[in-house]
């Protein structure tokens, strides 16, 4: 690859976008237009509207092309927008955290890619987007941006041949429904859409008839529910495949570069030195199947959709191998929180129990029944949440784990820590427990170890960061303290 000297001159986007952008807006408006032409009364307006729309889309694309230029200027990338009123976005290269290349099928057909620059600056995100460059040019810009961003300057040639750190095997896609969490909103959307259409076409003849059918033949519910579950699983699998097809993770130029997607290919680079740790996510079903998901904990990037994925799903062993290869291994044994069980139970059971009791005067048997069932389901949930709790340290990295439906174990390197906070509610104080949070300038900002004894919390914090905690520890002997000090944790 080149050194990118010409990037110091003013660069324009690819002229092909004059074709891509109108086509894309056409795709969005095509369905309404067809509907108007087919269903609507044929009027003059219904003919003019599409023409006006097309003209508008083309004009917008032309304007976008004319008004956007970019160039390197010293140690910054300057993106200029506007013909008359100009806006200049200036991104210091040492603040570039990652560069994402996206190509929709349309972009791919034209050999284009969208470059999105993720930088630690207080400006709007979309301004760091260049839509679109020729794919090779986009690739080169990414290399230059990340290269100059202080990444290790190794020779770039010939790195492509190295085997990827991780690759999603096609059959792992079948695990997708086990994750559960992404399925529900999509399924709800699709079901609502289907119901709407069915309703419009009077397929049901009103929901009342459906209800009476269920009342007469309650056994019909079983195949219906099974069919629904199969349908949801299928949707989840397809959705997952579209997003994550042929996910690969590579080590390139001091960055972790991932590529994914069936139709639209997305490529994300995460600068290695900004990766502070990793997190392992598991749902109960995934735990049964022995699979897990892996994400990076990256400075400045909240774990949004996909961006920080290191492996979308895979067997647990494989996931841990990828974590060790791509970020770092963790050898610590999690220490459980034995005294947390009571609080997990109370917190899971009391709210639904109160609701159940509150529903009694309403004399709605089914409502009380459902609430009681929810309360009962809270018991295994609470026990599982208790089992999940743990914390560990292996001398260079610390780790905490929590959650049941979404169990999360996060591993953070000590250098990524930016402090501790310890919280104790009134109830926790009475039984000598507290919640210890490690603050991290990455990912979610803080990761909590719930319901440890205060002694264990202090011991753990002092083990991970002895220099910070040492001067805060009470000198020995710690036996009897004046009870006048309300500040000290009680047992």
């Amino acid at each position, binding site marked *: 690859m080149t050194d990118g000297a010409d990037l110091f001159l003013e660069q324009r986007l690819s002229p092909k976008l004059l074709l891509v952008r109108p086509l894309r807006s056409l795709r969005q408006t095509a369905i309404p237009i067809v509907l108007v032409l087919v269903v609507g009364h044929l009027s003059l307006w219904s003919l003019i509207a599409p023409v006006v729309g097309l003209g508008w889309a083309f004009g917008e694309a032309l304007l976008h092309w004319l008004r956007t230029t970019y160039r390197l200027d010293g140690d910054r990338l300057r993106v200029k927008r506007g013909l008359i009123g100009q806006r200049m976005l200036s991104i210091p290269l040492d603040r570039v955290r990652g560069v994402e290349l996206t190509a929709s099928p349309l972009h791919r057909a034209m050999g284009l890619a969208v470059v999105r620059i993720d930088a*630690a600056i207080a400006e709007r995100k979309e301004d760091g987007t260049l839509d679109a460059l020729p794919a090779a040019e986009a690739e080169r810009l990414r290399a230059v941006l990340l290269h100059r961003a202080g990444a290790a300057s190794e020779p770039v040639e010939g790195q492509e041949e190295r085997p990827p750190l991780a690759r999603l095997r096609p059959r792992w896609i079948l695990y997708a429904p086990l994750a559960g969490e992404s399925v529900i909103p999509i399924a709800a959307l699709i079901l609502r859409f289907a119901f709407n259409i069915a309703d419009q076409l009077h397929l049901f003849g009103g929901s009342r008839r459906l209800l009476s059918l269920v009342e007469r033949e309650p056994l019909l519910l079983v195949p219906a529910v099974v069919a629904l579950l199969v349908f949801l699983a299928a949707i989840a699998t397809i959705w997952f495949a579209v997003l994550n097809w042929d996910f690969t993770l590579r080590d390139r130029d001091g960055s972790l570069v991932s590529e994914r997607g069936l139709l639209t290919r997305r490529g994300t680079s995460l600068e290695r030195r*900004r990766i*502070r740790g990793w997190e392992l996510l598991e749902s109960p079903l995934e735990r049964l199947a022995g699979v897990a998901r892996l994400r990076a904990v990256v*400075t*400045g990037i909240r774990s949004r959709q996909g961006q920080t994925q290191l492996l979308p799903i895979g067997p647990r062993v494989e996931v841990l191998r990828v974590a060790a290869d791509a970020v770092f291994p963790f050898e610590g044994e999690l220490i459980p929180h034995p005294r947390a069980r009571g609080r997990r139970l109370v917190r899971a059971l009391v709210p639904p129990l109160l609701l159940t009791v509150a529903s009694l005067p309403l004399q709605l048997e089914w409502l009380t029944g459902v609430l009681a069932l929810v309360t009962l389901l809270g018991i295994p949930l609470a026990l599982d949440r208790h089992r999940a709790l743990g914390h560990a340290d292996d001398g260079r990295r610390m780790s905490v784990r929590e959650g049941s439906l979404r169990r999360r174990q996060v591993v953070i390197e000590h*250098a*990524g*820590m*930016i*402090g*501790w*906070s*310890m*919280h*104790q*509610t*009134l109830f926790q*104080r009475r039984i000598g427990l*507290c919640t210890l*949070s490690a*603050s*991290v*300038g*990455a990912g*979610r*900002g*803080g990761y909590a170890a719930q319901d440890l004894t*205060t*002694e*264990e919390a*202090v*011991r753990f*914090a*002092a083990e991970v*960061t002895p*220099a*910070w*905690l*040492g*001067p*805060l*520890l*009470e*000198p*020995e*002997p*710690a036996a009897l303290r004046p009870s006048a*000090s*309300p*500040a*000290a*944790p009680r047992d």
Partner: protein
Amino acid sequence: MAERLRPPANRVAPRAMYLWGMEALGSVAGGVVLAVAAVLAIRSASPPWFQGWIADDIWWLPVLAAVVLLPLVVVQPVIRYRVHRWEVLPEVVYTLSGWIDRRWHMVPISRIQTVDTRRGAIERVLGLATVRINTASHAGSSTIRGLPGDVAEELAMRVARQANEQRDDAT
């Protein structure tokens, strides 16, 4: 090594009790206004159950609200004053706060990005200031309220200077 934290060394200014009391007074007043509004709304709607002793004694509702919320004004500031503490060590800023709960914050000075002081209207009257210590994580940031103005200035300067010398914000 003892596995217990000692409390931070310094208390905040006793005047801070007035600050917390007056702030609480604001929310109590809000609660009473809400109760009065609720009474007026119920009166004008006059639902079927609004009769007998309920209708006669409804004006006790705002009073009840005031009585229930009053501990916020009187007790809360006193407890807070007894709990809140702070200390600046060579490597860490250590704070403790809360009244029915407790929050310990340990912010290493090397990870501090900015230190601000802030004075609200009540604080200015009382000659108090709030020091906010910011890190790259909002969860890792810490706030010390109710410091005497000059102590706050001095503290902010000192922490900022120390932070500049040790800076490594882990981003």
